[in-house]
């Protein structure tokens, strides 16, 4: 067996039989993605309608055509409506197997329209990536047994890849001294300005005061986060996954406390995909309800 096939076995666990708990969990996970897709689509659409009038930064497909034509005539709201309806149809498995790809395209479009103002947020990447994996999964694995396994395995693969690549981005961008604690001081001051501007006031919390009190402490905080990113790829191995994922979740709480950056959807999804929740469900369920079977 080749090395990449071994990784495939860890991600997709072909030797494990599909259980009722797994299918119920997958449907819950898909509902989570659907609700966030609908929420993002409408909130981006409404924001565009109220605040966007010029393209400052072209992202994704916006590099190839002028998205400012889509700011008006309620087009963002129409895209949100279409995304919601098609997303619901996909959830109930009523449409063709390529329909999730259309939902993904619409969500991408809505993202590049909304974030044409200069900000490049990453907290929504996980939801976008999940819709993308649902699209690929429905096209190549429409089988009820295989699609859930592929979708979750693919998301886990790209999550691990993303964290490890973030480690190397920092190594290449700055060098081995990236974890110098004074860098954290600069980011705390930067984020404090963001909060001051957003809320009108700002107070340092306990962790920020601690980090600002000593370069040693702030360096240790940065080093912990950086090394956690490095080992991100270890989530590919099913036995290590819950431990690596716990460290990543802890790292996100650290980022929230030290730099006031929240990753709600991101962390919630890490909690969902990082642990074998299906085992808990299997303890109380012996067969898959018919209505779940129809929708997987």
């Amino acid at each position, binding site marked *: 067996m080749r090395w990449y096939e071994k990784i495939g076995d860890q991600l997709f666990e072909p030797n494990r039989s599909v259980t009722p708990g797994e299918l119920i969990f997958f449907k819950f996970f898909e509902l989570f993605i659907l609700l966030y897709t609908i929420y993002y689509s409408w909130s981006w659409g409404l*924001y565009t309608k109220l605040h966007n009038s010029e393209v400052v930064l072209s992202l994704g497909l916006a590099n190839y055509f002028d998205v400012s034509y889509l700011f008006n005539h309620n087009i963002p709201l129409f895209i949100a409506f279409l995304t919601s309806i098609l997303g619901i149809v996909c959830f109930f498995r009523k449409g063709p197997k390529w329909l999730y790809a259309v939902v993904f395209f619409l969500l991408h479009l809505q993202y590049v329209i909304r974030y044409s103002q200069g900000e490049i947020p990453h907290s929504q990447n996980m939801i976008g990536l999940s819709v993308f994996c649902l699209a690929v999964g429905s096209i190549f694995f429409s089988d009820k047994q295989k699609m859930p396994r592929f979708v979750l395995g693919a998301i886990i693969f790209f999550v691990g890849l993303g964290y490890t690549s973030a480690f190397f981005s920092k190594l290449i961008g700055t060098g081995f001294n990236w974890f110098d604690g004074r860098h954290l001081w600069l980011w705390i001051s930067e984020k404090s300005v963001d909060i001051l501007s957003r809320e009108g006031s700002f107070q340092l919390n306990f962790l920020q005061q601690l980090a600002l009190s000593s370069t040693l402490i702030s360096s240790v905080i940065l080093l912990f986060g950086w090394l956690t990113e490095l080992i991100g790829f270890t989530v590919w191995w099913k036995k290590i996954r819950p431990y690596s994922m716990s460290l990543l979740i802890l790292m996100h709480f650290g980022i929230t406390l030290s730099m006031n950056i929240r990753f709600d959807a991101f962390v919630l999804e890490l909690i969902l995909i990082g642990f074998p929740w299906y085992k808990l469900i299997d303890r109380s369920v012996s067969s898959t309800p018919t209505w779940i079977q129809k929708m997987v």
Partner: protein
Amino acid sequence: MDHSFSKKGIKIIGVIFVLYAVLVASHKGEFWPFSIYPMFSQAGNPWTRAMVLDVTDLPDDQIWETHSLYNRFAEPVPLKEHGIDQIDFSNFISKTENWTPERREALRYMFGQNRLGSERWMASKVRGQLVQEDSVIVEIKPFLLVTADTVRMNPSLDKSEYFNGEE
């Protein structure tokens, strides 16, 4: 399920990975939802953000002066209360290279038409940097004065601060 499933799955991931790499390599590290997650990759550099100061009650000869964050002469306008995304606003101010009349008008539109009334809001650049190896200084530079019907540039700043020469 058997190994042929996981073999097919990992091959599809391989194809997506190549697509991922090509897209992020050709689009400065970002092609949503694909990213190399470059945030915070360049540490130690000075940063520039933005905030809005309410200068309604201040005289004109005071509002354009550069000053420190801790001695600011006006209170910040809490953007969240006005439905404006702070990060968006900050990037709009710091990434715009040519402040054409259209771009200045877009800033007023971002604040919301008919919201300002008799108020005067100063969109300011805020810059932070490490000094003397062990402290951070943060400076506020008043940049654009936005009122209900005009957007004025800071008369004490050089024109190159507003126009990079390329249209």
